[in-house]
């Protein structure tokens, strides 16, 4: 029971991170029908920017541990969101009218560019987050000692997902995003500036991804310039698992993948952890090709 709960909470933490990244994939896909392969690397940028700001600004010494962490989080989120917007401007907007494959190639190029930029700036070795950013205490959950950081990761990702869901479902801007995802042409003819919707999606997705990167740095302590590859792939899997283009789907897919992977690693085989994640994907796609919450979309003729 003890081990199960430990693995479950760990799975939820990892799953929350997958879900945050997956939202970036799924929102961009929803509006542009494009897989932003550079998204995983924006997530890495979040982790590295977090490290630089954490050590460089010494915010925690200046404004206190909690306020310092909050300011750090806001800075990382804003900066990565801006990076996302720059990426959209530089890599995707010039190709808006081109065949879709051109944008995919551009996405792959942007991914390689970002990875190498991180390597050149920070070096190819793993970097380590300073310890003691948060007090290393454990909290008792149902009689099991769970690290505070893990609980924070779960809570923060759930809150961010909830906020995004409300934003997309309840506000007018959210309605515009959903409308543009269904029919860009009709959305334009209803006065929606689709270019602005796309820009917005490229601000929100990377913002969430950047937050996930910071949390990975704080939670695991170690980051590498290629970390975006595996996390990106897992998150992409999560997005497909839930139904690509579907926002609640990415959330459910991410959490589910994290939990399955974590439990699989504990009870089946640690070495097969990643294989289990992709096995789940294959199984679900056999039963439900559109993903858990995805809708069957009629092929446009």
């Amino acid at each position: 029971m003890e081990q199960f709960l430990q693995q479950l909470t760990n799975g939820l933490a990892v799953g929350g991170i997958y879900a945050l990244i997956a939202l970036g994939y799924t929102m961009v896909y929803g509006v542009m029908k494009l897989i932003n392969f550079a998204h995983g690397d924006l997530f890495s940028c979040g982790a590295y920017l977090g490290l630089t700001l954490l050590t460089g600004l010494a915010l925690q010494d200046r404004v206190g541990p909690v306020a310092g962490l909050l300011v750090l989080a806001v800075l990382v989120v804003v900066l990565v969101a801006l990076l996302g917007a720059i990426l959209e401007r530089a890599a995707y907007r010039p190709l808006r009218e081109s065949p879709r494959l051109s944008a995919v190639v551009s996405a792959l190029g942007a991914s390689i560019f970002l990875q190498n930029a991180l390597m050149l700036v920070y070096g190819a070795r793993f970097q380590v987050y300073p310890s003691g950013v948060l007090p290393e205490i454990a909290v008792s959950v149902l009689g099991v000692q769970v690290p505070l950081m893990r609980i924070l990761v779960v809570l923060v990702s759930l809150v961010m997902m909830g906020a995004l869901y409300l934003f997309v479902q309840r506000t007018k801007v959210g309605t515009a995003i959903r409308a543009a995802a269904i029919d860009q042409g009709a959305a334009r003819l209803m006065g929606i500036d689709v270019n602005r919707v796309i820009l917005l999606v490229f601000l929100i997705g990377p913002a969430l991804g950047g937050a996930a990167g910071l949390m990975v740095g704080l939670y695991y302590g170690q980051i590498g310039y290629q970390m975006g590859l595996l996390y990106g792939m897992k998150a992409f899997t999560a997005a497909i698992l839930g139904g690509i283009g579907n926002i609640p789907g990415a959330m459910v897919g991410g959490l589910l993948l994290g939990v399955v992977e974590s439990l699989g690693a504990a009870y089946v085989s640690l070495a097969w952890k990643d294989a289990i994640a992709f096995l789940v994907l294959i199984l679900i796609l056999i039963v439900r090709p559109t993903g858990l919450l995805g809708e069957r979309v009629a092929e446009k003729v």
Partner: protein
Amino acid sequence: MSALLEIREATKVFGGLTAVNKVSFDVKQGQIVGLIGPNGAGKTTVFNLITGNYRADGGTITFDGRSLAGLRTHRIVQLGIARTFQNIRLFQQLSAVENVLAGRHCRTGAGALAAMLRLPGQRREEREAAERAAAELSFVGLRGQAMELARNLSYGNQRKLEIARALATDPRLVILDEPAGGMNENETEELIGLIRRIQARGITVLLIEHDMSLVMKACENIVVLEYGARIAMGPPEAVKQDRRVIEAYLGTDEELA
């Protein structure tokens, strides 16, 4: 009365086919104008030129004295031209009221940041947009179906919902592409009433329609196209008796017979 929409020698060429050939006509403020013609005459192409879907290969289109050339589609909507589609293009997975809200989007100013922070001005705007959306749904007679997904509405109601969504953009000119398509006689009769009520709100209406009874009853002015060119223009009684119009319509019947 001044012309709200002026089309002068508008031309559109697709490959070797001249879909619209030097077509000129005016739509005066407050009128209901019908654009008719056999299939393939270029009617929808004219609509697409007006709304900026296609770029004209020649001629000018001015709305309220302002050239529409080169304007992006959503800007044209902001100037006050809204439209519906021949093949319904609702946001099928959204509810009826959300479809209308999407149309309201261009008239509300608060951006994404304000929405995330739930600023008071933005909340008021959301509330006003919701009230307006509800009002437009009642206007077209869909008040009871607000929460229904667009795709679950009947065909006739989907057409009405498209009109409500167009009206939510605060248009001065609304362009209806075959609004009676797929409607039965009763529904068409209702639609004529709806079009007149749109006119009563001071909104100018330009429509394409194959249902001649609707066109003759509802329109004050009719423009007839054939093979991309204008062959007649005038009030219904005059157009009905125009020799070229009769030939264009009956001629095809004779060939078939």
